[in-house]
């Protein structure tokens, strides 16, 4: 299998992390919602995936030949909305009316929204659906790829490990599991709640081609994904991304209260200011 060539052109200014974080903050403030920290930890991962790897023929979120991004950790959905805004799939009205009565976008991933592939939030579901999509694409013999983002807390769920066995057994080298290893779950640190041990070793032992990466270093993420697709013929891929929950806004970083805390006028302004938006990213 040949490595997937990155799609980026030097002029592509879309998916700038700071601007996407601003979208998340705007939505969270407009809708008075939670899960900001969960969205912030996957921003750079999504930047690289959308800018460099995910193929949507004719910019159509439902195009038959597309790659699939399965957000199994549905709690990060605002980050995906931010990407969809960059793509023009969502507009300002979607952002401003987030959580208003009758609005379309929910607080967790809902597959009836074009651009979201699975309904998740109940954890441990999306990855299995992604494994099924990968199996279907494999049977069709296409070169489409499936990326499934799971939280490290989500790895507590049994079906993740069932799916990992199946993916390796069926040699699904069109599937990449990306672990958002931000070290926290709802009620505390993953080490305190249910220690995960050495994730790279775990997935390697399941038969995955595995790499660890700094989940906020765009160049490193891009290179790691490239390398995973290039190596390990016949093996599913696992990218363990070390991330920071709440990344990008210092007072939210690794403060698990931002799993559940809502913004007020002051914290919203302070957070926007902390993003340091300038020039092209504005």
């Amino acid at each position: 299998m040949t490595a997937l060539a990155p799609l980026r052109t030097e002029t592509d200014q879309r998916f700038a992390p700071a601007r996407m974080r601003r979208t998340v903050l705007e939505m969270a403030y407009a809708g008075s919602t939670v899960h900001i920290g969960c969205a912030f930890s996957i921003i750079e991962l999504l930047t690289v995936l959308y800018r460099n790897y995910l193929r949507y023929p004719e910019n159509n979120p439902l195009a038959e030949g597309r790659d699939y991004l399965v957000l199994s950790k549905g709690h990060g959905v605002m980050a995906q909305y931010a990407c969809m805004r960059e793509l023009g799939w969502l507009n300002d009205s979607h952002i401003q009316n987030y959580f208003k009565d009758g609005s379309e976008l929910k607080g967790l991933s809902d597959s009836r929204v074009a651009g979201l592939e699975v309904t998740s939030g109940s954890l441990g579901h999306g990855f299995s659906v992604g494994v099924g999509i990968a199996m279907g694409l494999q049977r069709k013999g296409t070169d489409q790829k499936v990326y499934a983002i799971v939280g490290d807390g989500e790895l507590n769920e049994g079906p993740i490990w069932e799916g990992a066995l199946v993916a390796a057994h069926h040699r699904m080298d069109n599937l990449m599991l990306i672990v958002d290893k931000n070290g926290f779950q709802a009620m505390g640190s993953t080490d305190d709640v249910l220690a995960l041990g050495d994730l790279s070793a775990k997935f390697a032992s399941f038969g995955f081609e595995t790499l660890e990466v700094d989940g906020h270093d765009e160049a490193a993420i891009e290179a790691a994904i490239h390398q995973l697709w290039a190596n390990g013929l016949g093996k599913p891929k696992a990218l363990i991304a070390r991330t920071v929950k709440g990344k990008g806004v210092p007072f939210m970083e690794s403060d698990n209260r931002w799993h559940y805390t809502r913004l007020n006028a002051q914290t919203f302004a302070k957070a926007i200011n902390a993003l340091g938006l300038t020039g092209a990213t504005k």
Partner: protein
Amino acid sequence: MREAFSNALVRLALADPKVLLLTGDHGYALFDEFRKRCPSQYINAGIAEQNMVGMAAGLARVGFRPFVYGLAAFVPIRTLEQIKLDIAHDHLPVVLLGDGAGFVYSHLGTSHQSTEDIACTRAIPGLEVLSPADRFEMTACMDYAYAANGSVYLRMGKSDRGDVHTSPIDALQPGSLLKVRDGRADRPGLIATGSMVRTAVDIAQEQNLTVWSAPTIKPLLIDDVCAAARASTGLVTLEEHSLLGGLGAAITEITSEHLPTRVLRIGVPDQFSKHCGTYDYLLNEHRLDSTTVARRIYEFVA
């Protein structure tokens, strides 16, 4: 009945290469023919039912037509949330096959018995629920489940109770009651599903009662239920399933709203099996044996 199931599955899979059979390491012997004739469409997903059902959703999302097989205790019960969220939520074309429903695995105890599956699946929005009684209904249900192109649960209970129909069913009309025999109009009519249709027919012959079979429990046509109620003096429902939420509940939901009718519900009381024993022994334990059922219907008539 199991042969009819296997034949239908093989026929559908040969006609449509998108048909896939997923099993959670169950179906010994049952799938011999399928594995021989459609080997590439057979997927043993391992003893990992939750992932299997999620995976079926993924396969359906990219154009396949999965039939997911498990014991009813696992598909749908163990995997109910995957069915709700991954499949029914988007009305994906997946057929869920729950085998051994009721007390088929009488010697194995509660883990392998399922008397709550209809109640649980009925309440999932958009999910259709089928419950064939004999080989003719099985064939019709399989054909319908494929043609419906949506999310369907097909319940397979005790399969060796013999035919209740005398000839194939042309095309299953979802929600229709199928009249199995005519009886006296001045007595109650029996509406049964699955394994209990045979019991109903045997009793009806002695007491000269009309019998309808309900191969689809959801949907259920209001007109058909009301017509059955009008054609008799009260109704008796029979099912190898809990009294809560099953066929009897579905019928009384309709009659209470549209045509108040006296209904005797015969099914499994709110209890687990206590003992080990033959299928007949367990029916007896749950008061579903022919003698007890016949007496209860007789008393209801009186």
